[in-house]
C-alpha cells in the first residue's frame, strides 16, 4: 500500500470515528440522559392553573345569595425587560403616569424572580376592553381572570363571611393537600371559611406552550393532559333571606342582635348583628377601601355581636332558675312567694316593680317578679339535699351547661364566645371560701357574673320550645341539594329536666303575652310564648332583651333579641321579635298587623354615636338652626327688654349637636315606659 493510500485510509477512518463519537454522544443526550426532556418541559410547557368557580350559596327557600363575578388583573411575565415598548400608548390606555409605570415595573422586578408579577390589579372594565384589543402589541403582558364574590343581598354579612387572599401563615399550616398557591382566595370568615372545603371546588390545569420570550403559544398536545376544574359545591343555608333582611331592617340604627332558630332542627333562620355592613364591602375588590373604614367605625360593624358578644342575660334567665327549681323539687308550679316591691335579706334589697303581691311560678314568669326568683334561687342553693350551697351551686351549674351555656355551642358560625357561668372556685377566691346565696343573689335574676351570647340565648329558648332538648344551631341545610350535614348538627342534646316542668314555665311564658310584661306585643292568631328582660348596664342605658317562641305547640320559630342601651325588654326587643314571628309565620298578607309599630322601629335611632352627617341631614340641621334663630329673635323682640329681663342667649351649636330624632326617640321611650 502506498503512502497516499495509507493516508486516505486514515482520513476515512477519522471520518468514521467522528461519526461514531457523534452518534454515541447523541445516543447519550437523547436516550440515556432523560434530564433534557425535563429541561424542555420547564422551558416551554407552562402549567396554567384554572381556578374553579366557587360554590354558590343559597338560602333555605333556594334563593341565590352569593355568586361569582370575574375581574381582571394585568400581569407581566418574567424577565421584566421591555424592548421597543410603546410606553406612552400603554400608559394612556391604563391612564397612569410614566412615573407610576416605572414604579410598578420596579416593584415587579424587586419582588418576583420567575413566573409573572401583577402589574395592575383589578382592571376597570373600560381599560380591560381597551387593553384586550391591543394586548398583542405588549407581548410581555397578559390578563389574568380572577373570581370575586357578588351578593344578591345587603344582609347577612356576618353569617356569609368573606373571602380573601390566603395568608403566608395559612399557606404553610393549612395546606396539607397542596390545594392553595400564593395569591389564591380562601374563605376568611363566616360560612365561606367554615365550608371552605365544600365551596372551593377542585382546581383544573392546562398545559400551554410558551415561547422563548414568554408569550403563550396555544395548548399543548391539543389539551390531552388538561384537567378541567370542578366547580365548588352548591351550599344551601338555613337562612331565610326574607326574614333576615326584614330583621336587619328592624335592627337598623340599633345596636344588638337577633337570632332566630327553628327549634325542631336547630337550623338558624336569621342571625343579625347590628350595625352590620354590606357583604360586598369586603369583596376582593372593595375590601382594600372599605375594610379600614369599617374597622374604624365606633359602632363596630365587623364585630359579630350575635355570637361573640356576651351579655348578662337579665330576666330571661329566670326561666332557667324556675326550671331548675322545679326539677330539683324545691318549688312547684303553684308555689307562691310574697313580693312587696322587692326582696330583702339583711341589708341587701332587690327591688321589684309593682304587681300582684302573691304570684305562683307562672305569674312570676309572666310578670317577671324579681323577688320570686330570689326565693327560688335561695331554695335551690339551700336545698337540704346538698351538704352546702357550694355543692348545690355545682349542680345548678351542671344544668346550665346542659343548656349549652358556659361553652361554645360549636355552630358553624365562627368567632363564637363561650360566655360565662362562674365556677365555684371563682367564688371561693372572690369571697374567701365563705359564700352562699346572699353573695350571689344577682344570679337569680340573670345579673352578676354570668354572660350569655345571643346565640346561646336563642339556643336556650329553642330548648325550652322543644321542652327539653336542642340541636346545635347551624346554618348548613344542604350541600349540592343533598343532605350532607355534619353529624354534630344532627345529634340531640337532652336536658335532664322533665317535660312537665317545661310545660309549667311555657305556660308562664304564654301568660307574659297575655297579661304579663309583653302583653301589648301579643299578636292575634298565634300563641307566642315569651319572656322579657332588661339587663342592667353599668356603662349606660339598660339592654333590652326578649326571647320567645311561637306557636306554643309545635313551635316553628324561637327568637332571641337584644337591643343594647335602649331600655326595657318590652319596649324594643319584644316588638322586633314579635314582628319577626309574624313575618315568619306569614300571619298577615301585608307582612304585619302592626304597621305603626313597624314604622317606629324602622325610624328609631338608638346608636350611641351621632347620626352620620349626610348632605340632606346637614341641610335639615341648618334649616332647623335658622328656624331656631328666627324664633329666638322673634321671642326677643316680643319680650320687653330691660335690666331684669335680658335677652336669652340661644346656643345654636347645641341644636346642631343634639339630634332631634334622638330626642324624639327619647320621648317615645318615655311614652312607652311602663315598668
Amino acid at each position: 500500500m502506498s503512502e497516499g493510500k495509507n493516508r486516505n485510509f486514515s482520513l476515512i477512518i477519522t471520518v468514521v470515528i467522528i461519526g461514531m463519537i457523534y452518534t454515541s454522544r447523541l445516543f447519550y443526550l437523547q436516550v440515556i440522559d432523560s434530564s433534557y426532556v425535563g429541561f424542555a418541559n420547564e422551558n416551554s410547557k407552562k402549567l396554567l392553573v384554572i381556578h374553579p368557580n366557587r360554590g354558590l350559596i343559597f338560602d333555605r327557600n333556594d334563593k341565590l345569595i352569593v355568586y361569582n363575578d370575574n375581574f381582571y388583573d394585568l400581569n407581566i411575565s418574567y424577565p421584566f425587560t421591555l424592548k421597543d415598548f410603546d410606553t406612552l400608548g400603554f400608559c394612556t390606555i391604563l391612564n397612569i403616569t410614566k412615573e407610576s409605570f416605572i414604579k410598578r415595573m420596579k416593584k415587579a422586578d424587586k419582588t418576583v424572580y420567575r413566573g409573572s408579577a401583577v402589574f395592575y390589579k383589578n382592571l376597570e372594565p373600560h381599560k380591560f376592553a381597551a387593553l384586550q384589543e391591543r394586548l398583542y402589541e405588549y407581548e410581555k403582558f397578559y390578563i389574568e381572570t380572577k373570581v370575586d364574590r357578588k351578593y344578591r343581598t345587603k344582609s347577612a354579612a356576618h353569617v356569609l363571611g368573606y373571602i380573601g387572599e390566603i395568608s403566608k401563615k395559612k399557606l404553610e399550616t393549612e395546606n396539607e393537600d397542596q390545594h392553595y398557591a400564593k395569591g389564591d382566595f380562601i374563605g376568611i370568615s363566616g360560612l365561606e371559611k367554615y365550608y371552605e372545603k365544600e365551596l372551593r371546588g377542585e382546581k383544573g390545569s392546562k398545559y400551554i406552550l410558551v415561547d422563548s420570550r414568554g408569550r403563550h403559544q396555544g395548548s399543548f398536545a391539543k389539551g390531552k393532559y388538561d384537567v378541567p376544574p370542578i366547580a365548588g359545591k352548591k351550599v344551601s343555608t338555613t337562612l331565610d333571606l326574607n326574614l333576615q333582611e326584614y330583621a336587619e331592617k328592624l335592627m337598623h340604627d340599633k345596636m344588638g342582635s337577633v337570632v332566630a332558630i327553628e327549634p325542631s332542627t336547630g337550623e338558624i333562620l336569621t342571625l343579625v348583628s347590628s350595625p352590620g355592613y354590606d357583604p360586598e364591602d369586603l369583596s376582593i375588590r372593595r375590601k382594600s377601601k372599605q375594610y379600614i373604614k369599617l374597622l374604624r367605625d365606633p359602632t363596630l360593624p365587623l364585630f359579630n355581636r350575635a355570637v361573640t358578644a356576651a351579655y348578662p342575660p337579665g330576666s330571661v334567665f329566670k326561666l332557667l332558675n324556675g326550671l331548675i327549681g322545679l326539677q330539683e323539687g324545691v318549688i312547684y308550679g303553684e308555689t307562691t312567694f310574697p313580693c312587696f316591691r322587692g326582696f330583702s335579706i339583711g341589708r341587701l334589697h332587690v327591688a321589684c316593680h309593682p304587681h300582684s303581691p302573691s304570684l305562683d311560678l307562672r305569674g312570676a314568669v309572666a310578670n317577671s317578679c324579681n323577688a320570686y326568683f330570689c326565693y327560688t334561687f335561695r331554695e335551690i342553693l339551700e336545698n337540704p339535699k346538698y351538704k352546702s350551697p357550694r355543692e348545690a351551686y355545682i349542680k345548678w351549674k351542671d344544668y346550665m351547661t346542659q343548656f349549652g351555656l358556659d361553652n361554645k355551642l360549636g355552630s358553624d358560625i365562627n368567632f363564637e364566645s363561650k360566655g360565662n357561668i362562674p365556677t365555684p372556685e371563682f367564688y371561693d377566691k372572690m369571697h374567701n371560701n365563705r359564700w352562699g346565696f346572699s353573695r350571689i343573689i344577682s344570679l337569680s335574676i340573670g345579673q352578676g357574673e354570668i354572660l350569655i351570647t345571643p346565640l346561646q340565648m336563642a339556643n336556650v329558648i329553642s330548648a325550652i320550645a322543644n321542652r327539653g332538648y336542642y340541636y346545635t344551631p347551624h346554618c348548613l341545610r344542604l350541600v349540592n341539594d343533598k343532605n350532607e350535614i355534619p353529624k354534630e348538627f344532627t345529634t340531640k342534646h337532652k336536658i335532664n329536666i322533665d317535660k312537665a316542668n317545661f310545660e309549667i314555665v311555657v305556660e308562664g311564658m304564654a301568660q307574659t303575652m297575655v297579661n304579663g310584661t309583653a302583653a301589648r306585643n301579643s299578636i292575634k292568631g298565634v300563641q307566642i310564648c315569651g319572656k322579657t328582660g332588661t339587663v342592667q348596664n353599668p356603662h349606660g342605658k339598660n339592654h333590652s332583651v326578649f326571647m320567645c317562641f311561637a306557636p306554643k305547640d309545635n313551635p316553628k320559630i324561637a327568637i332571641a333579641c337584644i337591643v343594647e342601651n335602649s331600655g326595657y325588654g318590652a319596649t324594643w326587643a319584644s316588638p322586633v321579635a314579635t314582628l319577626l314571628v309574624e313575618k315568619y309565620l306569614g300571619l298577615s298578607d301585608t307582612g304585619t298587623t302592626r304597621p305603626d309599630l313597624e314604622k317606629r322601629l324602622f325610624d328609631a335611632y338608638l346608636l350611641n354615636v351621632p347620626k352620620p352627617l349626610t348632605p340632606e341631614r346637614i341641610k335639615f340641621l341648618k334649616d332647623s338652626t335658622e328656624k331656631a334663630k328666627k324664633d329666638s329673635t322673634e321671642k326677643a323682640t316680643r319680650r320687653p327688654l330691660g335690666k331684669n329681663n335680658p335677652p336669652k342667649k340661644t346656643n345654636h351649636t347645641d341644636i346642631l349637636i343634639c339630634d332631634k330624632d334622638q330626642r324624639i326617640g327619647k320621648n317615645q321611650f318615655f311614652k312607652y315606659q311602663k315598668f
Partner: protein
Amino acid sequence: MNQKKIFDKTSFDWPIILIYIFMVLFGWINIYSASYNETTGSIFDLSKNYGKQFLFICISGFIAIFWLFLDNKMFSLFSYLVYGVLILLVISVFVIGKEVAGNKNWISLGSFNLQPAEFAKYGVSLALAKFLGTPEARLKDRNTLFIALGIFLLPMFLILLQKDTGSALVFLSFTLVLYREGLSGIWFVIAICSIIIFILTLYFGALMVSSIFAGIVLLVYIFSSRRKYLTWIMVLITAGVVGFSSSINFLMENVLAEHQRNRILVTFGLLEDLKNQGYNVHQSKIAIGSGGLFGKGYLEGTQTKLRYVPEQHTDFIFCTIGEEWGWVGSALMMLLFVTLIGRVYYLAELQKNRYNRIYAYCVGSVLFFHFTINIGMTIGLVPVIGIPLPFFSYGGSSLIGFTILLFTMIRLDSTRTNEMSTLKDMY
C-alpha cells in the same frame, strides 16, 4: 468500444447524487419545520425562509445539471481565474459589503445577500488542485509548500479581517489535503498535542501542566536506556510545551474576543453561562436531548418551534432534526454524512488524475470540517463556531456554494475510467 466510451463519459457517481438530493430536500422540510407555527402558510411561500430555500434548491438544481454538462477541461483551465475572481469578490466586501449583525461579510444583491466566503472555498479548491496537480509540484519543496499554504491562507486572512471567524477557520480544512499530498504527519500530531495541552491547561493551569510534563520527561530520561538519543528532543519538546502552556493565558486574555473566550470555556464546562454564550448550546442540547429515541414527530418539536434555539434554521438546523426525528433520525444523518464524506475521499483516491484527486480531497475536507464543527457545536462537544451544515442549513450562498463544489467533483469523477480523457487532461 465507442458506446462504452460514451457511457463512461456520463457515469456520474449516483450514490453521492442521491445523498445530495435527499439531504437538500430533508434540509428544506426541516427549515420549514423550524419556522413553523400555526400561521405558517405554504412551504413555497417566497417571502419566508423555507420558500426562499426552495428557490435556492431550484437554482442549485439547475447549476448542478449545468455543471454536469460542462467540459472537464474547463475547470482546470479556469482554476486560477475563478480563484482570482473570488478573491476579488471577498476583497470587494470591504468596499461594498453590507453589515449584518456587526459582521461585514455580505454583498447585497437586491433582496438576496451573497456571502463571498462561501464561494471562496471553491476557488481555493480549484486553485489548490491546479497548483499541486502539476506533475512537478512536490510538497517537500519548501516554495511549493508556502505557495500552497498561501493559496488558502490569503482568503482565510481576508475573511478573518471581516471578523467572520467561523468561515475563516474552514480554510484550515485544506491542511488535510496537504497531508494527503505529502505534508509530514508530525504537524498534525503537534496540532492535536497542542489542543490537548490547551484543554489541560484550561482545566489545571499552566504551572501544573508544565511541571507534570517536565516530571514525566525527567522520569523517561532517568529510566530510558537510550538516553543520549532522547536528550535533545526531550528538552526541545519540554521547552515547547512549557512555552505553549504558559502563553495560553495570554492567548485567551488578549488575542481572543470575550465571546470567543467564553464559548471555549463553556464547551469545556469551565464556565456556566446559560444566558449569553452558553445559551445557544444549552438550548440546543435541550432541543436535541428532548427528542428521545424516535423524536417528537415532524412539526411537533416544541423547543425549536418556540424559538428557544437561536439560528435554528441556519447554523443550528440540526436541533430541529434531533428534536423531531430523535436519535434514529440523527444517527441516520450521521450515517449519511459519514457515507458522503467517506465516499468522496474514497473516490478521490481512485482518481488517476492528480488535479481531480486533489480537488476531490478539497471537497471531502471542506465537508468534513463543516460537518465536524457544526454537529459538534450543537451537541456541545466543540465551541460554538458559526458555520452552516452543508446542504441542510438555510442560506443561498452556502447551498449553491456547496452544490458547485460537490458537482464539480462529480463531473470530474465521471471521466475517471476514461483513460483517454484522463491523458488529455494531463497535458
